[in-house]
C-alpha cells in the first residue's frame, strides 16, 4: 500500500479525497469477492456447508473416506458397446469394442463400517477411459428415482436425518417435518419400504437417475437417462434372511461370484419425449419410453478400496466425454460440487497422514471403531 507519510506535504489537502476513493474501490472489489465466496452469507448453501451437514449426519468424520457412500470395494473390467449407442451419441465408448474402467461398488451411508444388510441404497460408479483420451465417469444408484426435487430439499433431508446428540438416532419429529414439507419424498419413502432387497450387488439394477444429453455425429441431441440392468437373475431376500446375513455380505458375495467368472450388466438408455422432466430427478419418465440397450458392463475383478485404484477417484457424474453432456438438473450440478469437496477433504486427510484405516495402514485401535 502507498505510504501516506511520503506524500508530498504540499499535496495533503488534495490527497485525501483521492485516497478515500482508492480505499472505497479496493474495498468494493474485495467485498464482491468475499460475497461470491460465501464468507458474508453464512446461510447460503455452499458445497462446503452441504459437506459439513453430511459429516454431521455421519456422527463423526471418517478420515480419508468418502463423506457419503463411504463403504465399498474397487472393481475393474470393461464396457463392451454393441454398436446401438453410436446412433445416439458420438462418445467413443459406443463405437469401440472394449473400453476399460476402474469402478466401485458401494452402499449408502457415511460410515465405512456400516452394515450391508442395513443399507437401503447400493451404488455403482465407473470411470471409463476410451482410446481417444476421453473419460466418462458415472455414479449410479439402486433407487429408480431421486428422493427430492431440489438441492435445498436434498440438504434439508441430510439435516433431518442427522443423529440427535442425545439419542444418537435421527429425530423422528424432524424427519416427519421434512417429509411433510416435501411431499415428493413420499414416493421415495414408499420405494425404500416396499422394494425387495436383492441378495447381491451382482443382481442389483443401478440407475443414472439424473438426465443427461446425448449428441450423435449428425448433431442431434436427445435427453436420456440410463440404467445398468444385471444379467445375473434377481433374487430377493426375505427379512429373516437379511437379518441373518453378515454385515459385509455384499463384498464377500462379490468375491465369491468373481471367483466363478465376470459379472455383467446391460446398459439400457431411455429416451425422453417432449415434456419429460429433465430438471427433476424425482420424476420418473413414463414406462413406454423407447429404450435402447447399448452395451454391457463387465466386472472382472475386485480389490479392497483402501488400496485399490478407485480410492483416489472422484466419481463426479459431470466428467463426460464428447457426445455426452449434463442436463440443467440442479441436483446433478450439486452432486458435482459436493463430491469435489468430499474428494478434496479425503485426499487432504490422506496427505496429512490422518487416514490410516482408509489407506490400509490402520493401527489395531483404529481398524474398527
Amino acid at each position, binding site marked *: 500500500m502507498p505510504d501516506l507519510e511520503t506524500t508530498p506535504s*504540499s499535496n495533503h489537502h488534495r490527497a485525501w479525497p483521492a485516497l478515500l476513493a482508492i480505499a472505497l*474501490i479496493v474495498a468494493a472489489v474485495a467485498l464482491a*469477492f468475499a460475497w461470491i465466496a460465501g464468507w458474508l452469507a453464512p446461510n447460503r448453501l455452499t458445497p462446503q456447508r452441504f459437506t459439513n451437514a453430511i459429516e454431521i449426519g455421519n456422527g463423526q468424520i471418517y478420515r480419508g473416506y468418502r463423506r457419503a457412500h463411504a463403504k465399498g470395494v474397487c472393481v475393474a473390467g470393461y464396457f463392451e458397446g454393441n454398436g446401438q449407442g453410436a446412433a445416439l451419441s458420438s462418445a467413443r465408448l459406443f463405437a469401440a469394442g472394449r473400453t476399460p474402467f476402474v469402478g466401485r461398488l458401494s452402499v449408502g451411508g457415511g460410515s465405512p463400517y456400516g452394515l450391508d444388510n442395513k443399507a437401503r441404497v447400493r451404488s455403482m460408479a465407473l470411470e471409463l477411459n476410451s482410446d481417444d483420451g*476421453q473419460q466418462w465417469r458415472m455414479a449410479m444408484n439402486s433407487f429408480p428415482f431421486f428422493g427430492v426435487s431440489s438441492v435445498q430439499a436434498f440438504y434439508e433431508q441430510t439435516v433431518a436425518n442427522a443423529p440427535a446428540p442425545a439419542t444418537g438416532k435421527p429425530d423422528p419429529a424432524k424427519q416427519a417435518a421434512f417429509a411433510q414439507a416435501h411431499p415428493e419424498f413420499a414416493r421415495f419413502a414408499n420405494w425404500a419400504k416396499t422394494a425387495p432387497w436383492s441378495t447381491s450387488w451382482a443382481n442389483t439394477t443401478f440407475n443414472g437417475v439424473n438426465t443427461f444429453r446425448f449428441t450423435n455425429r449428425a448433431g442431434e441431441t436427445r435427453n436420456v437417462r440410463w440404467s445398468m440392468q444385471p444379467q445375473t437373475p434377481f433374487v430377493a431376500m426375505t427379512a429373516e434372511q437379511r437379518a441373518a446375513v453378515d454385515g459385509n455380505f455384499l463384498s464377500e458375495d462379490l468375491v465369491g461370484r468373481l471367483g466363478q467368472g465376470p459379472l455383467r450388466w446391460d446398459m439400457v438408455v431411455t429416451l425422453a419425449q417432449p415434456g419429460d422432466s429433465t430438471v427433476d430427478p424425482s420424476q420418473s419418465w413414463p414406462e413406454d419410453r423407447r429404450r435402447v440397450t447399448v452395451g454391457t458392463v463387465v466386472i472382472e475383478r475386485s480389490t479392497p478400496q483402501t488400496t485399490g485404484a478407485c480410492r483416489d477417484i472422484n466419481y463426479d457424474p459431470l466428467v463426460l466425454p464428447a457426445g455426452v453432456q449434463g442436463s440443467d438438473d440442479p441436483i446433478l450440478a450439486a452432486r458435482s460440487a459436493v463430491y*469435489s469437496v468430499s474428494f*478434496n477433504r479425503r485426499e487432504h486427510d490422506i496427505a496429512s497422514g490422518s487416514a490410516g484405516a482408509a489407506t490400509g495402514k490402520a493401527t489395531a485401535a483404529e481398524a474398527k471403531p
Partner: protein
Amino acid sequence: MNSAKHFNLTARVLHWSMALAILAMLFVGIGMVASISLRPSLVSLHRPLGMAILLLVIVRLINRLRHRPPALPADLPAVQVLAAKASHWVLYTLMFAMPLIGWSMLSAGGYPVTMIKGFNLPPIAPHDATVYAVLRGAHSWLALLLFATVLMHLAAALYHAWVRQDEVFPSMARGEPTASAAAVAAPTAEFGESPQTTPEPRE
C-alpha cells in the same frame, strides 16, 4: 539513458487484457468452489481461461525481456520502489505458477484437463493423493495471495494516477505522447520539477 517513458503497445495490450482475464479468473475460481449450482459452467470456463493466461504471460515475459520498461519516478520513496518491485515479482511468478499448479493439480487428482469438450491436455503430474492435496491447497492459498497483490497493484496504480499524478499510470495507459500531448500530460506545478537524473528501471 535513452529508455522509453511508456510501455510499448504489446505490453499495454497484454497488461490490460490480462488484468481483465486474471480478475475474472479469480472471481470465477472463488465462485466455482463456493457455488452449489454454477460449478459445472464455471469449471468449463476456468480451465481454458487459465491456459489462455499461461500462454499470454509467456508472450508477455518475452516482450518484457526484449523491451526495457519505463523507469519509475526518480523521487519515488525507496519503500515504494521496493513495494513496486516486489509486487511485480509476485504478480509475474503467480501468473506462471497458478495455471501450472492448476494443471498439475488436476493431473494429480486423476481428472481430465478438459479445454473444450473433446480436447484434453495431457497430465503433467502423477495421479497421487498427496501430490493432489498439496497442489490443491497451494492453488487456493496462492489465489488469495494473487488477489491481495492485484488489489495492492490497483491501489498503487490509482495512487500514482490520482495522488502523485506522476508518469506511472499514463506509461501503461497510453503510448508515447506527441509533443503537444506531453505538455498536457506533464506533472502540474504543484509537484515541482521531478529530477529524472537517475531513473530506476521499473520493477
